[in-house]
């Protein structure tokens, strides 16, 4: 971002109004004002403004303010059992929160919670059946042994215990992105998945196709990463696609934004790289988006935040090896104003470690340029970029040793994704307990994964893995495995973990296609996949198809449907209204 020369002096003009200039700044400003009509007008305008605000009427506070304060002080001095109920709005609200918390405790303690490590039933049906079990736990790990052994060429029997969806699930995405036109005259649209109706067509569009997209939980915003032409850079943008809506009809509507529907905001430019850089993490309340920027000028990677309600974009970390992970709703004591959203931020240098950080300080001001290691609410050593399941109970994270590779960080030793439970611990932090390697049939040695893309399904149980960059020896006798061209579709409740047999059928996707993005549908058995095709050269517009795969197991082939082709189609996005509430 650059300032014009007048803007540089506006800050001095503003500071001069309350005498906050150094002698040198005063001299520079005076010299500039002598020859600049525009800045003299700014000075006059700011001075008028200061006079107008200072001249606002002062009103007398209510006469009973002192009595109210005294009553409040004395109320607080009483033991709790002698306090009258709901004297003050704030206190009454606090009591309601406490009562709600007590009720929740009774309900939680009264509910039958699954035991950690219990056996998971293995239904034979391939269709997901809702099972209202919000507390996900992992089945006992079966490592180090190989997975149960279907014969080569066979896929294992389905293992899933889907967590259930409170809203009837549909396989089509809520929206997808579509780019059309010639190479030098492209248009971009956000399209409704079930009807192909155009939701919005942003006027200001990126120079290249979108390659990652995530919708905010309140359905208002679509954040996306797009290629920036052929520059080797990506752009991070957000487009407002709808008015916000509350999760329930009587609920509080989400915060509005001054940005109109259809408008886009460019949030930053980043060096294009691994899937770790393409993570777009919305907070559960839709208030914040977290993303990662790799600085092309050698500054490394850092986490950034966008708050649509205020249009503010700020750099959360300034350490050069930080990546945005996932948001967590942190509770509060009964005398605090309420819960807030905190972000898992991971540092890559040294031993990979994740830190749970608030993004605003006590005065509600954005925390900028912080070192997460010194500002954390909780710390998880050996955990990199944890992806928390939508119901908050499980996490897929990375472990291994990373090193700087160009402008980003990649795993160079023992890199692999792990699956774990994600729960508050007794010390006020979070435990990544009962963990196991996500891929149960690969041997992670020095050479292993450098990166991969991973996405949870809305049920908090199913997940997809693709773009697996594996540097070790092949892990299967029949060929490349893990295979970068394949999509792996697994379930956390599967005690056998993720294996080579969980790859989609080889014929599901075009042979010359490259998987750009994968989303798991709320049905838990469908995947919506964006597959791009090699272009013929400079001047040919990029092409990608949006493909719907209905996964079958056993000897039944997957069902494949091309949802849209011609031009660039994808990525798809689902909002969070199919999610199960976190415990």
């Amino acid at each position, binding site marked *: 971002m650059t300032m014009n020369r007048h803007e540089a002096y506006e800050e001095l003009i503003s500071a001069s109004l*309350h005498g*906050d200039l150094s002698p040198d700044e005063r001299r520079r400003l005076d010299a500039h004002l002598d020859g600049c009509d525009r800045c003299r007008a700014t000075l006059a305008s700011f001075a008028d403004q200061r006079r*107008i605000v*200072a001249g606002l009427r002062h009103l007398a506070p209510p006469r009973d303010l*002192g009595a109210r*304060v005294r009553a409040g*002080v*004395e109320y607080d001095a009483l033991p709790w059992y002698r306090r009258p109920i709901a004297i003050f709005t*704030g206190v009454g609200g606090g009591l309601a929160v406490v009562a709600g918390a007590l009720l929740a405790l009774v309900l939680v303690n009264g509910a039958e919670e699954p035991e950690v490590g219990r056996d998971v039933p293995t239904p034979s049906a391939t269709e997901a059946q809702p099972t209202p079990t919000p507390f996900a736990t992992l089945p006992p790990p079966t490592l180090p042994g190989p997975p149960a052994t279907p014969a080569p060429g066979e896929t294992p029997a389905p293992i899933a215990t889907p967590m259930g969806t409170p809203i009837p699930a549909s396989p089509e995405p809520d929206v997808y992105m579509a780019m059309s036109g010639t190479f030098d005259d492209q248009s971009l649209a956000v399209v409704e998945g079930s009807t192909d109706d155009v939701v919005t067509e942003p006027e200001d569009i990126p120079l290249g196709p979108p390659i990652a997209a995530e919708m905010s939980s309140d359905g208002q915003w679509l954040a996306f990463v797009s290629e920036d032409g052929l520059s080797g850079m990506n752009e991070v943008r957000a487009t407002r696609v709808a008015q916000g809506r509350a999760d329930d009809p009587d609920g509080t509507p989400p915060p509005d934004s001054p940005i109109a529907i259809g408008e886009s905001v460019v949030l930053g430019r980043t060096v294009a790289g691994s899937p770790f850089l393409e993570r777009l993490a919305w907070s559960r309340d839709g208030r914040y988006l977290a993303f990662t920027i790799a600085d092309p000028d050698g500054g490394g990677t850092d986490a950034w935040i966008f708050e649509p309600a205020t249009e503010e974009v700020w750099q959360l970390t300034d350490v050069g090896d930080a990546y945005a992970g996932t948001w967590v709703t942190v509770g509060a004591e009964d005398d605090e104003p309420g819960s807030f959203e905190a972000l898992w931020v991971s540092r890559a240098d040294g031993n990979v470690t994740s830190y749970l950080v608030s993004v605003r300080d006590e005065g509600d001001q954005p925390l900028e340029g912080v070192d997460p290691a010194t500002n954390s609410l909780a710390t998880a050593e050996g955990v990199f970029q944890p992806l928390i399941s939508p119901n908050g109970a499980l996490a897929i994270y990375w472990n291994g040793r990373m090193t700087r590779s160009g402008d980003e960080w990649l795993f160079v030793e023992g890199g692999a994704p792990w699956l774990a439970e994600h729960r508050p611990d007794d010390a006020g932090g979070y435990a990544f307990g009962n963990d196991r390697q996500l891929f149960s049939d690969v041997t992670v040695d020095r050479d292993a994964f450098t990166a991969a893309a991973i996405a949870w399904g809305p049920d908090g149980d199913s997940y997809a893995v693709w773009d697996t960059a594996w540097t070790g020896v092949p892990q299967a006798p029949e060929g490349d495995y893990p295979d970068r061209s394949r999509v792996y579709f697994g379930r956390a409740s599967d005690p056998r973990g993720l294996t080579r047999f969980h790859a989609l059928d080889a014929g599901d996707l075009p042979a010359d296609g490259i998987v750009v993005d994968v989303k798991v549908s709320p049905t838990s058995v469908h995947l919506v996949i964006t597959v791009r095709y090699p272009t013929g050269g400079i001047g040919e517009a990029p092409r990608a198809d949006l493909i719907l795969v209905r996964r079958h197991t056993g000897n039944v082939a997957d069902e494949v449907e091309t949802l849209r082709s011609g031009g660039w189609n994808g990525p798809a996005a689902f909002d969070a209204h199919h999610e199960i509430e976190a415990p």
Partner: protein
Amino acid sequence: MQSMAVPGSLAWGAPAMSRRTDDAHERAFALLFEEFSAPIYNYVLRMVADPDRAADITQDTFIKAYKKLDTVTEATSTRSWLYRIATNTAIDDMRRRRNVTTMSDDQPTFANRPDHRPGPEAQVMAATLDERVQRALLSLRPNHRQCLLLSDLEDMSAQQIGEIMGLSYGAVRTLLCRARGEMRRALSNEGFAR
């Protein structure tokens, strides 16, 4: 713009049912309340634009201040400390109401709430001007509004504003400049000449 100059300073009466026996604490709080109750109320009123909410927030501010008064050691920082409590309390209130950026027309805001007190025509005209300035203030982002009010209504330095908002001196200068630019446009929309 001195704090003592505002009308309506209130006295802190002797407690009817005191559980605190520390007279020094009571005296210190009485002075604090007498000096700052009106300025804090007006500052909060301009932040939230609702007299009833402003009264509630001011009340909560002083209850918190009473409980934490023992933690203040330097007299010179008392004002910043109190404004910080007021600012945080107001922000918490706005967060709870999900009303950080805009207020709907049908809410009983300061801007559209009738002032029943009788007064001369000049007061009516002043109220109209006041209403337009308040509308312009309300259109600002909360941190811009807060920064501008502390600077121009409360006549605080960048250093003091930084103590209240938890920002560096340089960050306050930048924020204040942006706030002035935003306010310039907002006042222009309200018909102010430049």
